[in-house]
């Protein structure tokens, strides 16, 4: 072997959280290894042990400030089962759904406008100084404002249902702690038509972009994969609740309508030495073939239909592109994300017109349990929370498979594919070429904040210095 060159993209930017890509090249600039690493750990699974169960929905959302509602609700769903609340009151379930669709709306708008639109509007190798939301705001102020105002609308819904835009407290074991007043409702109804218009136009931007560039996007970072999500018992897309379904790249069912309490029988996660993020796979298929994708693309692929008319029409149009088969184009995530954006505003509209939101019966309780699983379809895919609690109500075990972790193998395949297609053998590796790799990663909307909950390795030697360069601490691994 000749000399090896190492190229790193660090940090991966315009994604949420901390990630890094490493490429190893030989003397002819052939890519010999391409990896996506999650480089941070925090240790939630261990350090929440010993905390009381009722604290968990507000504690674990600090995993992630981008999708706190997802963790808040997945944990609350698990805690519902812990307190024996097997069926929530209509008011409680609908307030939670409103909170969830509010977050879906804000998160998808944030990702599309604030984080990805610069790549789509300016090109993958545009000047990095302007290839960001500020560049968009200067060149396309109207579009930037639409993105900002859509996100704001979703954030305001979260605030009205959870109490705060980030890290709210609305969901509690067995229900919620407030309903939605008529006055609050009317504020949202006032702007809803505007939101519909903007969501439709965002969907058109994503669709037109994909169709116009289809030849380039089809192979870009793409490969066949399995897909997994929750679906409702009638096969409809349901982002708040359902059963597990997994399908192959050409649409055959691997399993269907699995009660998610039994997720451990179907899924497992492989540990690799070079990433803090584990690699989940479907047990029956094994680590080599059992990996899968989650998130908007997977959900539009797995569901039989969407139960709101505008999004359903958009889904049909999307599926027509692949003759009704699952779509495996990585960059099609953007299009499907905008289908869900539209679906979310349709759902918000439905809910705002529902009198149950003003209900006053908010909490139920039943017979206490000591173990529970809560799942939800978060903006970035299926999110798993699993807890065991002792008789005093203290957590003794926690297992979290966050949405982004499910896509770990897919990130790595995408990075490898782009490296092989665009970087392999190229004499001069430019910033623009490296941004191609980040474009591929961004398509999934990874939430690396979420993905860093696992615990990592002790340091070998770590030295801390103060601002004067004095050593203030030094740790050596035993």
């Amino acid at each position: 072997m000749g000399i090896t060159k190492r190229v790193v993209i660090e940090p991966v930017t315009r994604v949420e959280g901390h990630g890094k890509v490493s490429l190893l090249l030989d003397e002819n600039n052939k890519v010999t290894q391409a990896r996506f690493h999650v480089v941070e750990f925090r240790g939630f699974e261990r350090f929440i042990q010993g905390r009381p169960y009722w604290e968990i929905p507000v504690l674990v959302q600090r995993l992630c400030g981008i999708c706190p509602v997802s963790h808040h609700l997945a944990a609350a769903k698990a805690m519902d089962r812990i307190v024996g609340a097997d069926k929530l009151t209509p008011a409680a379930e609908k307030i939670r759904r409103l909170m969830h669709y509010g977050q879906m709306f804000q998160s998808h708008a944030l990702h599309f406008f604030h984080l990805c639109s610069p790549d789509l509007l300016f090109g993958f190798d545009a000047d990095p100084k302007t290839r960001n939301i500020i560049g968009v705001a200067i060149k396309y102020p109207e579009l930037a404002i639409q993105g900002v105002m859509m996100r704001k609308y979703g954030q305001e819904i979260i605030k009205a249902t959870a109490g705060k835009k980030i890290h709210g407290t609305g969901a509690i074991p067995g229900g919620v702690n407030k309903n939605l007043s008529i006055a609050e409702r009317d504020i949202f109804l006032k702007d809803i038509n505007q939101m519909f218009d903007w969501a439709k136009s965002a969907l058109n931007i994503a669709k037109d972009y994909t169709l116009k560039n289809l030849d380039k996007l089809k192979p870009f970072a793409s490969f066949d994969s399995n897909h997994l999500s929750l679906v409702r018992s009638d096969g409809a897309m349901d982002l708040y609740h359902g059963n597990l379904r997994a399908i192959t790249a050409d649409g055959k069912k691997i399993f269907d309508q699995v009660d998610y309490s039994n997720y451990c029988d179907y899924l497992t996660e492989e540990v690799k030495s070079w990433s803090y993020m584990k690699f989940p796979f479907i047990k029956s298929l094994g680590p080599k073939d059992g990996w899968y994708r989650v998130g908007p693309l997977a959900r539009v692929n797995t569901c039989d239909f969407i139960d709101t008319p505008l999004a359903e029409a958009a889904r049909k149009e999307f599926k027509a592109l692949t003759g009704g088969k699952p779509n495996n184009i990585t960059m099609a995530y953007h299009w499907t994300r905008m289908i869900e954006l539209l679906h979310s505003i349709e759902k918000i509209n439905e809910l705002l017109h529902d009198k149950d939101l003003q209900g006053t019966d908010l909490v139920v309780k039943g017979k206490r349990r000591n173990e529970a699983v809560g799942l939800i379809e978060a903006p970035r895919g299926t999110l798993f929370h699993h807890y065991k609690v002792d008789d005093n109500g203290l957590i003794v075990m926690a297992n979290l498979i966050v949405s982004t972790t499910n896509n770990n193998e897919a990130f790595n395949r995408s990075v490898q594919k782009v490296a092989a297609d665009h970087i392999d053998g190229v004499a001069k590796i430019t910033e623009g070429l490296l941004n191609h790799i980040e474009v591929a990663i961004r398509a999934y909307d990874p939430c690396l904040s979420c993905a860093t909950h696992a615990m990592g390795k002790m340091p070998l030697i770590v030295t801390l210095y103060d601002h004067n360069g004095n050593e203030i601490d030094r740790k050596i691994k035993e």
Partner: protein
Amino acid sequence: MMMKPKIATASLAGCFGCHMSFLDIDERILQLIELVDFDKSPIDDIKEFTGRCAIGLIEGGCANEDNVHVLQEFRKHCDILVSVGDCAITGDIPALRNNIPLKECLEEAYLNGPTVYNPEKIIPNDKELPLCLDRVYPCNEVVKMDYFLPGCPPSGDAIWQAVVALLNNKPLDLPYELIKYD
């Protein structure tokens, strides 16, 4: 044209919520870009400092060697450094790990978890992974921090008022309702 002052932001051991709260300034972002240019930040693609910055906003404490390195870089390049949010100020929730033996934590996540598949009993360890600190440190124990903005996260309004005051060399006098400890 007058050169605009620059602002830079970093997320260390935080949840990104403080950055999201910064984006909760909503349409005021258009006013902000009249006032400042953005330098190194996870919301743009500037990965190395391009010059001296007036303000550095830091989210999160220090949990690994990279966090320390980034924080020191920010101290070097920014006139004013602000600890934004409880993680930067105290370590906050990530610091809950400070009282737990690391060995236990490793085994929990990579060997014992109910969905772990790890026939070779691997614990992640690679030269691409930064070394972890023995515990999570608040930013002010690593470098000098100039201002502290409490909250988990501080609201968009609080961040907005603080940044505007700092840019105008005004005292940081936030109204009572904007100061929240959660």
